[in-house]
C-alpha cells in the first residue's frame, strides 16, 4: 500500500464529507421553518426577529451561511441547538458514544452468530441445516427493526419478564444494569445483520468451495478440516469484510429506529428529536457525524482488506 493510495483514500473521505455537508445543509436550509421564529416563539415582534436573524446570520445569502457553518464545523463547532440553547457538538458526541456502544456490541454479536451459521450452511449445502439457515435468514432480512423490537419486547420483557423493555443506564454507572438495558436493542439491531451476513458468508464460501484451488487442495489428500479452515475460509471471509462495512450504513439506520423505540439517548434519538423539533444545527451535526462514521468504517474495512489480501497492490 503506497502513500499515494492513502492520500487518495483520505481525499475521498474529505470529498464525501464535503458532499454530505452540502446535501445536509441544502436540505435543512430549504426547510419551511424559520429558525428565528422557533427561537423566539410565534408572538415575537418583527424587530426582534430581524435582530435574531442578523445575529444568526440568516439574512445573508445561502452560500455565505454555508461557508460560515462549514468554517465552524471544521474546528468542531456545530453551532447552538435551537431547542436547548446548548452547543450542539458536545451533546452530539456524547450521544454518539452511546450509539457506538450499541453498534459495536451489535457488530460483535452479529459476527459471532453469522459467520458460524454461514459456514454450517455452506458446508451442509442442500441439507437440512442449510435449508433451516436459509429460511431463518430470509425471515431475518425481511423483518424491519420496529417489528423485531415489538416481538422481543413482547417475548422477553413482557411475557418472560427477563429484561427491561426501555430506558438507559450508563455502563460506567452500573455495568450489569447498563448491559441488561442494552440486550434487547442489540438483539433487535443484529437480527437483520445476522441474516444478511450469514447469507453472504454462505454464498461466498459455496463459491470458494467450488474453485480449482479447493479441488487441488482436496486432491493433495488434505483433510476436510484443513481444506475448509486453511484454504476455504480465509478466501471466503475476505469479501465479507467489505459487506460488513457496507452494512454499517444499514446498521446506522437501524440504530435510529431502535434508539427511538427503546428510548436510548444515542445519536439516532437525538436526530429524531431534532427533526421533530426542526432543530437545524442538531440535524446538520447528526447527519454529518453519521456519514463520517460510515466513511471511517469503510476506510477501515479497505485497510483491513488490503492488509489481509496479499493480491491487492494499491497505487
Amino acid at each position, binding site marked *: 500500500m503506497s502513500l499515494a493510495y492513502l492520500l487518495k483514500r483520505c481525499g475521498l473521505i474529505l470529498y464525501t*464529507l464535503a458532499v454530505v455537508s452540502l446535501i445536509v445543509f441544502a436540505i435543512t436550509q430549504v426547510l419551511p421553518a424559520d429558525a428565528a421564529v422557533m427561537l423566539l416563539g410565534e408572538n415575537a415582534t418583527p424587530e426582534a426577529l430581524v435582530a435574531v436573524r442578523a445575529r444568526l446570520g440568516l439574512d445573508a445569502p445561502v452560500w455565505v451561511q454555508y461557508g460560515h457553518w462549514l468554517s465552524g464545523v471544521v474546528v468542531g463547532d456545530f453551532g447552538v441547538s435551537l431547542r436547548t440553547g446548548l452547543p450542539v457538538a458536545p451533546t452530539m458526541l456524547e450521544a454518539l458514544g452511546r450509539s457506538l456502544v450499541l453498534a459495536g456490541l451489535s457488530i460483535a454479536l452479529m459476527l459471532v452468530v453469522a459467520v458460524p451459521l454461514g459456514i454450517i450452511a455452506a458446508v451442509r449445502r442442500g441439507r437440512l441445516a442449510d435449508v433451516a439457515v436459509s429460511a431463518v435468514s430470509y425471515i431475518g432480512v*425481511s423483518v424491519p427493526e420496529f417489528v423485531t423490537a*415489538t416481538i422481543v419486547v413482547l417475548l422477553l420483557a413482557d411475557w418472560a419478564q427477563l429484561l427491561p423493555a426501555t430506558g438507559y443506564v450508563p455502563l460506567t454507572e452500573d455495568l450489569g444494569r447498563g448491559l441488561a438495558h442494552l440486550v434487547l436493542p442489540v438483539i433487535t439491531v443484529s437480527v437483520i445483520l445476522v441474516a444478511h451476513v450469514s447469507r453472504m458468508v454462505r454464498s461466498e464460501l459455496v463459491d470458494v468451495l467450488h474453485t480449482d484451488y479447493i479441488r487441488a487442495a482436496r486432491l493433495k489428500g488434505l483433510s476436510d478440516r484443513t481444506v475448509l479452515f486453511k484454504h476455504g475460509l480465509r478466501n471466503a471471509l475476505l469479501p465479507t469484510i467489505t459487506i460488513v462495512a457496507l452494512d454499517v*450504513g444499514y446498521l446506522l439506520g437501524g440504530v435510529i429506529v431502535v434508539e427511538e423505540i427503546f428510548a436510548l439517548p444515542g445519536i439516532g434519538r437525538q436526530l429524531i428529536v431534532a427533526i421533530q423539533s426542526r432543530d437545524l444545527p442538531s440535524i446538520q451535526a447528526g447527519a454529518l457525524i453519521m456519514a463520517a462514521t460510515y466513511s471511517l468504517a469503510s476506510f477501515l474495512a479497505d485497510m483491513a482488506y488490503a492488509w489481509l489480501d496479499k493480491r491487492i497492490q494499491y497505487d
Partner: protein
Amino acid sequence: MTELLARLARSPQGALGLALVAVVAAIVVAGPMLAPYGPDTMSVLTRYQSPGVGHWLGTDQYGRDILSRLLYGARATVLMALLATALGTLAGACLGTTSAFLGGRADEAIMRTVDAVMSIPSLLFALLIVNLLGKSSLNALVAIGIAFAPGMARITRSVALAVRKQDYVSAAIARGESSAYVVFREMLPNVVAPVVVEMTIRVAFAVMLFATLSFLGLGAQPPASEWGLMVAEARRYMHLSPWMILWPSLAVALVAIAFNLLGDGLRDALNPRT
C-alpha cells in the same frame, strides 16, 4: 417470458416467491373488494376483539376490523413501495448508464459523488427529505425513491460496464454505429435483466423502509390503514391486545419475504450458468 417463468418455478424459492407475490398483487388490486368491512367502520361494541368468527383477525381500539384494514392498507404500503422503487430505479438507471457511457473523468466524478451520497444511511436520507417536504405518504415515496437512486446508479453502471466490454458492442462500434444505437439497441436490452433482479429485492427493502417511516410518524398519517402506522398505533395497546400489533407486523414481513424470494429466484433463473 414463459421460459423465464418456467425456469423461475423450477427452484423452490423462485416458485414460492412467485406465488406469494401473486397473492400480494391480487390483494393490492382487489383488497378493498375482498374486505368484509370498511377500513374505518368503527363500533364501540366490538373493541379489542381477539381473532374469531366475524372478525377473523380481531379488532382494534375503535372496533375496526383488522383484516379489512390490512386489505385496504396493502395499497398504502405495497403500492407506495413499488412506486418508490420504480422511481429510484428509473433515476438511478439513467444516472448509472450515463456515467458508464461518458466514462473517464466524468464517470469518476459522478461515481465518487454517488459514493458520497451513499454514505448517508437510506433511512436517515429519507428522514431528511420527508422533513424537507413535509410528512405524507407521497413525500415518503419520493424520499425513498431519491434515497434508492445512488445505489441503483452504482449497480446499473457496473452492469453497463460489463456489457460494454462484450465483443458484440465492440462489433457494433467497429461497424460505425451511432452512440444512441449502441446504447439503446445493443446494450440496454442486456442491462435490463440484472437491474430488474436488483429492483425486485429493493421492493422488499422499500416496503420495510416505507413502513418504518410511517411507524416513526413521518409517512402515512392517521387514519390511514398503512401497516407501519397500524403497528405504531397498536403499540400502546400491546399488552392489552397483542393481535393488533402482530398482524400488521406479519404483513410487512411477509411481503418483504415474498419479494426477497422472488428476487433471488429471478437472479438464478436469469443466470445462464444454471
